[in-house]
């Protein structure tokens, strides 16, 4: 079986500014894969390249053995679903309508859903615990609810690969853990391949099977959390010192940010 995602010597630039330089990567099918790295290190661009939203200058991205631009947009959307960082919330579609839009790559262009589509949407809403909001218009939702609605929409696409861009950024701790548990459950039960971008190193350590640490469009390290989250590599990527020790919950590293006043100069 080919890997879910295969990135070969990928180079992407916006104008003249290169964002990804010669990045190569393999994500096995069924993995829980988390991309970390400082701001503007190219994490979101990598996600967008996998989703076919940016054209590479060099190299290519393959999804289950087929180059991304050989898919029609519709065919790709049946395989890959994306939960973007920000979604417009000013349009008063109801939650159910938004979730049903996940059926777009499956229904005909005239776009009337069948009973089957309605059932799939109901199931997706039940999984992400937003079924009680079905008739609520989008602008009335809280940040956590909105995030779960967008994930329900992605599930409604029936993808094999789920890409998420900082899904926990706007959530309180309880919602963060719930969401990450949900993603883990989807990976286990539906066999979804989950690839997400995160700024939270500890969540990444606890949930990610494999991590990619990026800096300036290149991979600093790929591997299990213990292989990636080391003092030297974190300092190299982020340019600041972090304390790395063992997480009391299990055999994963724990990263602690260190305020400047704790950094003593040798004098």
């Amino acid at each position: 079986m080919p890997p879910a995602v295969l990135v070969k010597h990928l180079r992407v630039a916006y104008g003249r500014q290169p964002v990804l330089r010669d990045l190569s990567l393999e994500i096995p099918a069924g993995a829980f894969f988390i991309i970390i790295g400082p701001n503007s290190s190219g994490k979101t661009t990598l996600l967008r390249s996998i989703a076919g939203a940016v054209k590479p200058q060099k190299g290519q991205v393959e999804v289950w053995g087929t180059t991304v631009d050989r898919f029609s947009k519709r065919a790709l959307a049946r395989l890959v679903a994306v939960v973007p960082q920000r979604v417009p919330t000013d349009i008063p579609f109801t939650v159910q309508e938004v979730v049903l839009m996940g059926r777009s790559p499956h229904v005909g262009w005239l776009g009337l859903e069948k009973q089957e589509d309605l059932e799939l949407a109901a199931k997706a809403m039940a999984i992400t615990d937003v079924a009680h909001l079905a008739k609520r218009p989008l602008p009335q939702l809280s940040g956590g609810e909105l995030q779960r609605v967008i994930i329900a929409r992605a599930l409604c696409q029936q993808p094999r690969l789920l890409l998420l861009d900082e899904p926990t950024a706007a959530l309180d701790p309880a919602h963060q853990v719930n969401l990450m548990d949900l993603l883990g459950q989807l990976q286990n039960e539906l066999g979804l391949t989950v690839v997400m971008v995160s700024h939270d190193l500890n969540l990444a350590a606890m949930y990610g099977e494999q991590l990619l640490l990026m800096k300036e469009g290149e991979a600093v390290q790929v591997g299990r959390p213990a292989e990636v989250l080391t003092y030297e590599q974190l300092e190299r990527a982020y340019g600041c010192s972090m304390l790395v020790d063992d997480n009391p919950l299990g055999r994963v590293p724990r990263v602690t940010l260190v305020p400047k006043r704790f950094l003593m100069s040798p004098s």
Partner: protein
Amino acid sequence: MSWSSLPLRRRLLWVAILGGLLLATSLALGMCLGSTPANWRRNLAALLGRSGPEDILTTIIWRIRGPRALLAGLVGATLSLGGLVFQALLRNPLADPYILGISGGSAVGAILGLLVGWALFPGVALLAFLGSTSTLLLVLLITAGASGTRKGSLLLAGVMVNAFCSAVIIFLVSITQDARLHNMLYWLMGDLSMAVPEQGSALIYLLLPCFLVILGLARPLNLLLLGEETALYLGLNVAVTSRVLLIVTSLMVSLAVCQSGLVGFVGLVVPHMFRLLLGPDHRLLIPACLLGGGSYLILCDLVSRVLPSQGEMPVGVITALIGAPLFILLLLRSR
């Protein structure tokens, strides 16, 4: 049970039934009311073709008022649909069907035609159509290179072309001093008085395919409301779809406008009105705008014919006089 909790098919059925009834009523009223009074019995007989071909009322209803109501209905439907599409495509609530330079281009064409002294149909209409298609082409050429900020540059290019054309129009109007001035002003405000039977029936065949294309793209329009990136992730080929919508809609509006002049406000107020009533789903809004927008302009045209004791006024005056207060009322109620 509230409107939004009805299944989509049920809501669609309601829109079709109520919209169809509204359109049929408006058409009947538009054909039966006018400066030649007759009781409803004679009107009905003439409408159903029972009063014989030599009856003067039959001639008025089928050769004069009928074509005019048909033209009004088609123009109203086209402008409403055009506004709806551009508001979604450009994600701008102030977009109207003329926004890509269509009003300026067609007006320059029409006024040149009137200056030369051509008849409104087909001479002036043809020039107006040429005018709007060439400004549209110009706007598309200006924005062809821009990629990321395409929407913004489309809007700006359209506004600039329209502004330039306005200056040309005022220039042309100000050097004209005879009776042609009256025709020019009426054209600029929208005027349906010169409708001839051949016009509407030819227009139907040209507009119907455009309506169908847009109706088929109802779901993609919904996706575009969520932003281009999300639409792409949901399997829409955004570049191709936007381009098709842009060109089909502009052509359709040019076709309508060149026959009616610049009827304002319909394309702005009708889509927003239905959005407040029905919600943001284009699968409902497109049929609603077609049926409701058509009815709205037929009724406005009727008022513009009947209200003044002598002659008539440009229909654009009525569309704004009725539309603006109605819209504000709905806006206040929806809060």
